[in-house]
């Protein structure tokens, strides 16, 4: 394998303006929600007002009679999809369940569950028509709490569901035959925790809970579908993975993938939430019925209630350490609410917690539990923020009881190359310890807090990152520029990074590479824009196509110089004759001679890389708590992260900062408020309350470039992990400031006031 991590680069590490930039700052870029077709109808979705009910019947006759209404579809119009489990970005889903999720069959399983869809001349008429659809519900008791749902006498949401013992996250599992709302139980075990806890001088065991939260992408889900009279289905949407969604649609609609084309539009955020399909199915069905293109956009309330937020969780964590601070054992029980269908990210959470440390004895017992809430989906480092909030809070208490600096405790136990994760996998070369040490040496760490009610907290995090296949193609233009076709939707700057790697390999400027994102008929298979994998895997694809292009151009230079290709070299963007030093042509010069030496050159390649470099990070935060109101202000925040080789440092830093901001929201404000009937009470941005510019300080970063030895350009995933530590770090900082341990998220002002009054009252 070629490793060029220590090479000096010309393009990699610079900060060119992104290729899609001008279109995005002028409003020209077309996002899924902007897509428009002549003769297009508008669709709307009727959603369940109940969290749990049988559908006795649906009568759409009055809606269909409304002028301007063209068609209505319901779950009864869908074929029966296969009962088969597939991965969905660290969460999982089952085709049959997914079909039931996009249009309910016999039951509605959460408030907001799609029941029917209408196509009309305008969105306003479609909305009017929704009110005319009569649904006869038999309302059932909702099951709304994970721990309650696990009990043997709980109402069963899926009466035939049995507990599957999962050996690994996506293992089909051993069926225990026990009927339960517990869909899966996964156990990770390393060493012997009983022996480990016996060695410990200090043991801390605590319980935690976290609320449901949403990714909060600004562009709502949308889909425009045209089921053409030749039987082909084309979908224009906002997607984190067109090939994956093509497969999902093929399974739900019972069509071959060859009849479906997904055309990715620009995507206005996703963070995991735009991996599954939702509106694509009803839009396609409505188009089939009407023969016209149909567009459906979600409202913000539909996004909150009807897509895939991140699981609410309950957990119990126990850790033990010797007097000198060596962690001897760690145990966790994780209960993740999957929502209406199985497939939470509990397995990924189990894999992510404790992983920053070398611990020989670990047991993690994870439960995937269905409740009458929306089906959870991936959200940035899926499952891991919830688990690490718990484990990093316990780490802080361990440090306190040991009388150690919490960062020092982490440094003492930092996992390194060759150490094992709880699932037995050994860590590759990475910069975990370096992040901790750089943070300890930082100005922030050495600074004074400078006031009362202020505190400082630290927390670490791990995220494994993903690999997944990628394909791209390049075509060489006569002027020496290069067209670069990709198939991975660019959600945050990957396009410029991928183009920069191509430019680096070819010895041309980043601006001379013209990247574009293609539809599923125009490029080879690409995995999800998820798992922090897009730049990594497309870097591999670019490495392949540029190597092949250079080899082809070498033969052209050889032809010009009447020699053998072996006698032609290529370095720093220049082809040269090894024999005659005066013979040389730049990439651009030779590109201009392709027509006369055998014709144009274009190259395509598909790769399926392994060796996604894992991410490690440690965060430091200063807070000030107002003891009167319980409001927490973030005074200063520094994230130290191993980011591998940075291709475009600004966008790497932006990913780190963006995850921190989401983590701060998760820590302090964001949550789904459900009433006792399972209805979300705060389904608007105002009431859900994502952080605004005013809520956050400048976000500082320490970017440790520990090149991924398993990547040609040293890339490791950078995008997700930064959302993992903020909750633990802030909780620890609040304790440091005012002496209360906040063990359930969010750490909202009213909870802090209550905790303070309990603390003061007990004195």
């Amino acid at each position, binding site marked *: 394998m070629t490793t060029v991590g220590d090479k000096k680069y010309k393009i990699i590490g610079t900060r060119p303006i992104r290729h899609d930039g001008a279109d995005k*700052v002028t409003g020209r870029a077309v996002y899924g929600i902007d897509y428009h077709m002549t003769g297009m109808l508008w669709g709307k979705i009727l959603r369940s007002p109940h969290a749990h009910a049988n559908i006795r019947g649906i009568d759409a006759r009055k809606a269909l009679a409304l002028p301007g209404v063209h068609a209505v579809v319901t779950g009864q119009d869908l074929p029966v999809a296969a009962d088969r489990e597939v991965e969905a970005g660290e969460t999982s889903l089952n085709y049959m369940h997914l079909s039931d999720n996009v249009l309910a069959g016999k039951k509605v399983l959460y408030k907001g569950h799609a029941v029917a869809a209408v196509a009309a001349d305008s969105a306003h008429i479609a909305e009017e028509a929704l009110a005319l659809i009569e649904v006869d519900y038999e309302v059932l008791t909702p099951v709304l709490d994970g721990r309650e749902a696990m009990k043997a006498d709980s109402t069963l949401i899926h009466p035939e569901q049995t507990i599957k013992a999962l050996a690994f996250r996506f293992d089909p599992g051993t069926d225990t035959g026990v009927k339960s709302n517990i869909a899966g139980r996964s156990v990770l075990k390393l060493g012997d925790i009983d022996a480990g806890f016996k060695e410990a001088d200090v043991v801390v065991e605590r319980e935690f809970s976290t609320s449901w939260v949403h990714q909060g992408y600004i562009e709502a889900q949308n889909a425009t579908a045209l089921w053409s009279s030749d039987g082909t289905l084309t979908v224009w949407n906002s997607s984190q993975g067109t090939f994956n969604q093509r497969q999902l649609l093929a399974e739900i609609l019972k069509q071959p993938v060859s009849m479906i084309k997904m055309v990715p539009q620009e995507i206005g*955020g996703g963070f995991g939430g735009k991996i599954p399909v939702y509106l694509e199915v009803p839009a396609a069905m409505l188009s089939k019925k009407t023969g016209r293109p149909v567009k459906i956009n979600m409202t913000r309330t539909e996004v909150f209630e009807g897509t895939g937020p991140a699981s609410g969780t309950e957990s119990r964590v126990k850790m033990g350490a010797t007097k000198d601070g060596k962690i001897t054992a760690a145990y966790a029980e994780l209960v993740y609410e999957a929502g209406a269908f199985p497939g939470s990210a509990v397995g990924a959470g189990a894999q992510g917690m404790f992983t920053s440390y070398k611990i020989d004895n670990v047991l993690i017992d994870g439960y995937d539990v269905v409740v009458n809430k929306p089906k959870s989906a991936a959200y940035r480092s899926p499952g891991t923020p919830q688990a690490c909030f718990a484990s990093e809070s316990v780490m802080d208490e361990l440090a306190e009881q040991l009388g150690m600096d919490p960062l020092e405790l982490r440094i003492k136990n930092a996992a390194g190359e060759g150490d094992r994760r709880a699932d037995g996998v050994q860590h590759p070369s990475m910069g975990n310890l370096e992040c901790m040490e750089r943070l300890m040496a930082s100005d922030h760490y050495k600074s004074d807090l400078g006031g009362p009610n202020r505190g400082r907290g630290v927390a670490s995090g791990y995220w494994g990152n993903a690999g997944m296949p990628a394909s791209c193609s390049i075509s060489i233009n006569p002027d020496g520029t290069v067209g670069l076709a990709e198939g991975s939707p660019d959600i945050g700057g990957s396009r410029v990074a991928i183009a920069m790697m191509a430019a680096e390999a070819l010895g041309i400027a980043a601006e001379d590479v013209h990247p574009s994102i293609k539809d599923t008929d125009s490029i080879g298979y690409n995995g999800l824009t998820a798992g922090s994998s897009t730049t990594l895997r497309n870097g591999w694809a670019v490495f392949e196509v540029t190597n092949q292009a250079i080899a082809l151009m070498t033969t052209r230079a050889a032809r010009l110089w009447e020699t053998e290709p072996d006698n032609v070299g290529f370095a720093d963007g220049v082809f040269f004759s090894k024999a005659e030093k005066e013979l040389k042509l730049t990439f651009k010069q030779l590109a201009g001679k392709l027509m006369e030496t055998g014709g144009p050159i274009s190259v395509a390649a598909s790769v399926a890389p392994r060796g996604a470099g894992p991410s490690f990070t440690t965060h430091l935060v200063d807070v000030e708590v107002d003891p009167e109101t319980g409001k927490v202000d973030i005074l200063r925040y520094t994230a130290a992260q191993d980011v591998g080789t940075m291709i475009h440092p600004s966008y790497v830093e932006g990913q780190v900062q963006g995850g921190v901001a989401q983590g701060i929201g998760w820590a302090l404000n964001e949550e789904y408020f459900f009433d006792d009937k399972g209805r979300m009470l705060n389904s608007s941005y105002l009431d859900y309350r994502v952080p605004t510019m005013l809520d*956050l300080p*400048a976000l500082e970063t320490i970017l440790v470039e520990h090149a991924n030895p398993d990547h040609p350009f040293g890339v490791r995933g950078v995008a997700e992990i930064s959302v993992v530590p903020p909750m633990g770090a802030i909780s620890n900082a609040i304790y440091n400031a005012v002496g209360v341990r906040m063990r359930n998220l969010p750490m909202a002002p009213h909870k802090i006031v209550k905790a303070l009054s309990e603390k003061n009252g007990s004195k």
Partner: protein
Amino acid sequence: MAISKTHVRTTLNGEATEYLCEPNQSLLEVLRDVLLLTGTKEGCNDGNCGACTVNMDGRIVDSCLVLGVEAEGCKLMTIEGVATPEGLHPIQQAFLENAALQCGICTPGFIVATKALLEKEPSPTEARIRHWLAGNLCRCTGYDKIVKAVVDAANTMGGKK
């Protein structure tokens, strides 16, 4: 039965613009679905995210909260009116140079809101910028680079309106 439409006359990005709209259509719908100016983005459609920010008679408004008929006689400026044939506006350039966008869906709203700020207050403090733009949500960047871009744009513009 079709709803009767209202004839509305405005000045949009410096040009006299007329449109027909239904009484229940918001200005955002008119811009996007009638005039096909999709640079003004829809984020929440309930006035909480600022993605649909436009300038209406010198004030920034969430166009999802304004009815199309209310724009009668108004001067409107949308993201499509910020750049000139000569090139990008310094604010747009600053957003690009500072990597102040990731997915970019909130960017038009931020730029329109920033332009209104810098026309009023050429040299705002960071605190003032954070206060002025608090009605514009961004979920990707953590805002850090947006603030830097606005400071950068203010410096480039040198207090010129």
